[in-house]
């Protein structure tokens, strides 16, 4: 039996990374945050961002992590992937997360999950990147993995087990 040693690259909260196959990008414990992946199937280059908030307009200083906000994460991730050799026109997106973890969400801040989903979709269409699959909303946490050798997006949750999109 051959055990392949595929490197797993962890992406932290408000962070992002991109890699060429073989490699797996992983981010854990998404609640209202979004795990957004971009994949170039020709060059086998993948990128993953752990997006926390919809818009950088609310940032109170300018030295923020670009991956924290949907509107800054997506262009930055594209750029990082293009540097690795990805073709912008080949990119496909998949995303998961944007849950509403607590039922009694009264304030606007608590509705952040749906707003994150919406903003990510707007940004993707602005950059004409097709969103080919998603697993968003609900009231549960998710951990996601992007396999850069085939673009499979694996979603793990406590209640619903493992699924691939």
């Amino acid at each position, binding site marked *: 039996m051959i055990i392949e040693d595929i490197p797993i690259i962890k992406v932290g909260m408000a962070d992002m990374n991109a890699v060429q196959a073989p490699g797996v990008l992983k981010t854990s414990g998404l609640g209202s945050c979004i795990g957004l992946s971009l994949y170039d199937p020709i060059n086998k280059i993948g990128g993953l961002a752990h997006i*926390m908030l919809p818009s950088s307009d609310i940032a109170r*200083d300018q030295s923020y992590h670009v991956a924290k906000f949907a509107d800054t994460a997506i262009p930055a991730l594209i750029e990082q992937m293009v540097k690795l050799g990805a073709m912008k026109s080949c990119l496909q997106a998949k995303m998961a997360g944007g849950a509403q973890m607590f039922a009694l969400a009264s304030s606007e801040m608590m509705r952040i999950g749906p707003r994150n989903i919406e903003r990510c979709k707007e940004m993707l269409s602005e950059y004409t990147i097709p969103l080919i699959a998603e697993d968003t909303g609900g009231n549960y946490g998710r951990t996601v993995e992007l396999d850069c050798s085939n673009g499979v997006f694996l979603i793990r949750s406590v209640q619903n087990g493992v699924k691939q999109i």
Partner: protein
Amino acid sequence: MDQFQIAEYQMDVLKEIGNIGAGNAATALSKLLGKQVDMKVPSARLMPFDQITESLGGAEQVVTAVFLRVVGEVPGNMFFIITLESSKRLLNRLLGMDIGADGFTELEMSALAEIGNILAGSYLTSLSDFIKLNLQPTVPSLAIDMAGAILSYGMLQYGQMGDQALLIDTTFMEGNEEVEGHFFLIPDPESIERIFHALGVPPS
């Protein structure tokens, strides 16, 4: 505003807040259980988002959490977090409920939310008395899920200004650590100055 700085003497004040709040909550739990409940020395730290779940065993660790948004003069987020095993033992001790392997029923979840509500309520009441500012908890909600997914809710207010959040963490345990849990108080950024001001703590 840049990533804010909190001096060490100010952190000591925040630790004392954790001490008073969790001390009262531990007393409440001790009365509920009819047993002694011990508490560790609280920690108050500015934590990078990524490390905030560390004391719970990582972002993917499944925990039982009761969340209350705190409103009033010192807005913030309050979490009462216990391990799955501890929540089963707690229900068993308090209500004689025997919890099977396949998750919690609606009644059991509701009982857990109410326990969290009582304990968080006594934490916040004592805190309000101490700092002489008005704060009220909203209706509690319960989630049993990954620690990262739950706690990230408490950090959203900090997401606007930096990559770390102020966390006041107090661990309590009963008996031979048969029931172990945490109180997390994450005051909103603007609340921190108000707490210091109310207590006459000089700015750093």
